């Protein structure tokens, strides 16, 4: 008798069992996987002036041959032609890298302090980190506009305490600095929580043992605490780095005209220039850039699960 080698309860023929797999599977295939194939396809097709602004996709299987012959790299060539796109990709990666580093720099001490706090107040601290994360992204970015505007609250504050003359204004809004502030602010909970999770479950007696063996605290941190928290560092960095690379709202609302980010470029191609194939090509290249970090993230998640 053939058996499935996994330990499980009997009655394998029960069709309900397979519905459990089939329903979410089919949903995700249809609404997550297939769209990626379509985006790939459209990125190879020509811009049409009509709406939808690309030549149609489904012409039956007989048309596949025709269709393949129509494919071209025109949109991709265009991406390489115009240095603007290349710069936008590089700039996105640069901003994402710097932001992730800043997030680690700020998030790690916070997570460490939370993990070292008395266990009675730890749940409260965790909730305090989570609460802003439940608050709308848009609202949190919006909150910074009022602060950073030239005639905003930061200017007012600096003028009031005399660090700035009454006619001077803070020139942060609509620059990359504002984008960094917005990103660090918005993504901080995403960085702190995985770090905290890794630090919190660490056995405290390890540090006592290190201390007992003559290791001073700062050295114990680099030799024990930090290496053991690396899974959290990787998880937190990936969770932040990947979406930041494609971020749209923050550079759009806080960045300036010269703030180049690929998410914004894609949005403009799509909504303003209505060039869907080009937007698709931009998305495909962005996705390709993120394949490696996404693979790292998935690996990490599987290890946790």
């Amino acid at each position, binding site marked *: 008798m053939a058996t499935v080698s996994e330990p499980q*309860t009997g009655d394998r023929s*029960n069709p309900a069992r397979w519905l459990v797999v089939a329903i979410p599977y089919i949903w995700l295939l249809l609404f997550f996987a297939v769209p990626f194939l379509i985006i790939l396809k459209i990125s190879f097709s020509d811009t049409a002036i009509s709406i939808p602004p690309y030549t149609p996709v489904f012409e039956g299987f007989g048309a596949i041959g025709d269709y393949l012959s129509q494919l071209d790299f025109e949109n991709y060539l265009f991406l390489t032609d115009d240095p603007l796109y290349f710069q936008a990709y590089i700039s996105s990666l640069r901003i994402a890298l710097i932001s992730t580093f800043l997030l680690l720099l700020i998030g790690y001490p916070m997570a460490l302090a939370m993990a070292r706090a008395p266990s009675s107040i730890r749940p409260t601290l965790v909730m305090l980190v989570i609460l802003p994360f439940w*608050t709308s992204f848009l609202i949190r970015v919006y909150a910074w506009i009022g602060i950073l505007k030239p005639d905003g609250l930061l200017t007012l504050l600096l003028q009031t305490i005399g660090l700035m003359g009454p006619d001077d204004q803070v020139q942060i809004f609509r620059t990359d600095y504002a984008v960094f502030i917005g990103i660090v602010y918005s993504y901080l909970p995403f960085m702190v929580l995985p770090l905290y999770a890794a630090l919190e479950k660490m056995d405290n007696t390890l540090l006592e043992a290190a201390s007992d063996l003559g290791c001073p605290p700062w050295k114990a941190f680099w030799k024990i605490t930090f290496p053991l928290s690396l899974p959290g560092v990787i998880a937190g960095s990936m969770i932040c780095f990947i979406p930041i690379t494609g971020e749209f709202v923050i550079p759009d609302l806080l960045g300036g005209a010269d703030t180049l980010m690929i998410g914004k470029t894609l949005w403009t191609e799509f909504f303003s220039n209505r060039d869907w194939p080009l937007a698709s090509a931009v998305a495909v290249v962005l996705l390709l850039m993120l394949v490696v970090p*996404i693979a790292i993230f*998935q690996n990490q998640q*599987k290890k946790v699960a």
Partner: protein
Amino acid sequence: MKSHRFDATVLTLGFAFLYIPIIILVVYSFNASRLVTVWGGFSLNWYTTMWSNEGLMDAAWVTARVGVISATLGTILGTLAALTLVRFVRFPGRMLFSGMIYAPLVMPEVITGLSMLLLFVALGIDRGFWTVIIAHTTFTMCYVAIVVQSRLLTFDRSLEEAALDLGCPPVKTFFKITLPLIMPAVVAGWMLAFTLSLDDLVIASFNTGPGATTLPIKIYSQVRLGVTPEINAICTILIGLVTLGVIATSISTKRTELRRIRDEHEAARGA
């Protein structure tokens, strides 16, 4: 002791950074003056204008419906997906399946939004209320799956085996034993899904159509025109709702926790 003071400083500064902008936003929603930098006295003026702003109210109503429907669908699908991840060790395409669960968590929204839109166009579906719901269901179900999965991983399967052993068929066992016990995680998943749907601007922008303008889309279009106290007012209400929800949940978990501790004391006393 030195590290103690360091930790306290870090946390104070960190939380100040996280909360001061939100507090400012809330405070200025009660500002009588239209100018951000001028405090013109306390006023509920912006709440009343907001209330009579029909476009804003329509958007809020659309958002609420989209949120409830997509969170519910996302919770059902996400729970099934979590069961699949934890309980089905081997099936064809498992790698692909878990990839499709984890990827949307980090996928830049512009990519998810655009790709779904292209699917709807390819299928000839008009964009509107239901396409936003499908899009939101798809990305929120992945979050629900992660939340429920972590609960299922610690679920004692002998409870289900005990039910089967006592004559309860599998599907009934799921509804009588498994579901009631993972309910807190399912509810948490629903709340997360609802909030994510409520917050989403990018995916909704790509997939919406006439008559299905959601609140974030509305807010975004107004924010681009500048800071207005009216936006502060609606943001404050949203923050208030979410805060209430989170606090209520945490109080109820705290109460369950307290009951559990009391139970254990009782068990230790009475024999």
